């Protein structure tokens, strides 16, 4: 019950008691309550005229880092006897120090500051506005107003440093890099030996072969190293995500994507990214630190979503990727994805799949027992079959149990695979 109504009720009761008993004492008891209400009415706030500024320092941070929010309010209207400022803090933001709300008096032209320190994991956090509750000194007539004061902070995902990631795409670009081109040319790595042709530089003559075949001359060929175009594809479909005891599977994928993009860009490659889930979020391919920043910002915004169209990989416009380029798909994979990946392979794309293991991630959620054991075995067999189909198509698979750090998994698996192919 509102306090005004309660006081009103008491006044009514006393007045009626006075009238019923014809005794003025009851009415006298009601008089101080009238005065109390009257003083509250005199004091009640009018329209608030405030200038509010919010500053977030810094504007973007990495996951787990702290940032500060400063709110400054200046009163340009009438005297505010009691005002409560409440900054609307987005969910999943941990407040470490200070408070987003403040109760104070705000005289005319007076100003007040409010500061608090927050921390968050990956995401884009929007601050919608500030809620103000002004009231008289008795708190009888509160007036609530909401000021729209939109701000945002981008919390980038954690980037794990990977050692050199070795990939062997079929097509490379013309700029020098670290990826062997599978063609002879100017370079330092040995590629092969062929018969000498006039015009070949004499310093490339292979004397050992010439000694074995008298009368013939041979030239040593080298393999140039170039940069490549790499497309990272992050599976953000709702059904690919699992919430487990160790957080969300999608968060692990985001972290892996960030680590890979960082590693590829560091080696001078041209890297693009596509997040597909509720919609397609393209980060067009590019080089360098700016591109790294773009990818991290896109990853910070990434959320899982559902879409009738992008529920299956077949609706992805693969023609957007350069022909025979390197695609790195980060997804736990579904059975329906297999034919699509095989088709991509047939188009000439080099596909690497980094597949976090949803079974291992999820198994702790269920009670132990025979049924669970059987279910696990069946699920693993099914997954094994899926992997064998993909391997037969020449798709490089990197199974990943997310409890193992990504740098350990990727480093080992890709290096081994590359050596095998060489």
């Amino acid at each position, binding site marked *: 019950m509102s306090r005004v109504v309660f006081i009103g009720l008491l006044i009514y009761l006393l007045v009626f008691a006075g009238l019923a008993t014809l005794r003025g004492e009851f009415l006298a008891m009601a*008089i101080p309550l009238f005065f109390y209400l009257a003083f509250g009415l005199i004091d009640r706030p009018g329209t608030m005229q405030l200038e509010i500024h919010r500053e977030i320092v810094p504007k973007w941070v990495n996951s787990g880092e702290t940032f500060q929010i400063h709110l400054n309010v200046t009163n340009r209207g009438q005297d505010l006897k009691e005002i409560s400022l409440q900054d609307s803090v987005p969910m999943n933001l941990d407040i470490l120090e200070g408070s987003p709300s403040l*109760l104070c008096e705000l005289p005319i032209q007076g100003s007040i500051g409010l500061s608090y320190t927050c921390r968050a994991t990956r995401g884009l956090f929007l601050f919608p506005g500030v809620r103000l509750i002004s009231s008289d000194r008795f708190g009888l007539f509160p007036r609530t107003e909401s000021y729209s004061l939109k701000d945002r902070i981008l919390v980038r995902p954690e980037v794990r440093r990977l050692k050199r990631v070795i990939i062997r795409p079929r097509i490379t670009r013309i700029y020098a890099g670290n990826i062997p081109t599978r063609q002879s040319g100017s370079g330092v790595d040995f590629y092969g030996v062929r018969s000498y042709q006039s015009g070949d530089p004499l310093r490339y003559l292979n004397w050992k072969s010439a000694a074995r075949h008298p009368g013939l001359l041979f030239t040593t060929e080298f393999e140039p190293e170039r940069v490549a175009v790499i497309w990272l594809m992050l599976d953000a479909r709702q059904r690919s995500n699992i919430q487990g005891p160790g957080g969300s599977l999608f968060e692990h994928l985001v972290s892996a994507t960030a680590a890979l993009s960082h590693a590829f860009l560091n080696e001078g490659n041209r890297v693009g990214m596509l997040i597909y889930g509720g919609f397609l979020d393209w980060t067009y391919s590019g080089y360098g630190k700016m591109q790294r920043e773009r990818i991290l910002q896109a990853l910070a915004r990434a959320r899982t979503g559902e879409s009738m169209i992008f529920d299956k990989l077949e609706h992805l416009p693969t023609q957007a990727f350069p022909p025979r380029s390197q695609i790195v798909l980060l997804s736990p994979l579904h059975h329906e994805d297999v034919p699509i990946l095989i088709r991509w392979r047939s188009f000439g794309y080099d596909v690497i799949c980094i597949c976090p293991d949803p079974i291992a991630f999820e198994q702790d959620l269920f009670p132990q027992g025979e049924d669970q054991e059987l279910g696990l075995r069946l699920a693993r067999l099914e997954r094994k079959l899926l992997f064998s189909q993909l391997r037969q198509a020449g798709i490089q698979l990197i199974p990943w149990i997310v409890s193992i750090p990504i740098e350990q998994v990727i480093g080992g698996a890709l290096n081994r695979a590359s050596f095998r192919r060489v």
Partner: protein
Amino acid sequence: MRTKIMSLACAFLSAVVMAWSYFRFGYLFITLGILIVPIIWAVNLRLGVQWIPSSLLFVICIVSSVGLFLDMPVLWMLLSWLVSFIAWDLNHFSYRMERAQSVDGADQIERHHILWVLSALSLGFLVAVITLNIKVALNFWVIVVLSILLVWGIGQGIRMVKASRL
């Protein structure tokens, strides 16, 4: 914390004044019942249940009305009633201060609040005492008209408050 202590002190003072009046008139059971009020008040200061102070204020209102009906001293009843009302107001004020996660100039807000509530209720008490000492003979119909006017006035006041909120 200070307002909480003041609130408890006011509740205690109010109960003592009222209990003393009832005791003098020989109502021992009611006296004991009244003395329970500050105990409940003290317990509730720790619990923070919002409806308990209002209920206790309502009980005190009823008890002081009964006291007036039983011809107990008007000033004692009025004083007890006012002090319990101050206790109720301070209790709500301390709740508001606690609910706010941080307060800027808490002492100043507290001081202004206490001054304002004391001004309002002292003035009310003064006017009440004056009205008790001025006797005007009114016939029944004048009282009826005045009461209707009073009810209408309060209704208008509430309507005005609602309009100002919108």
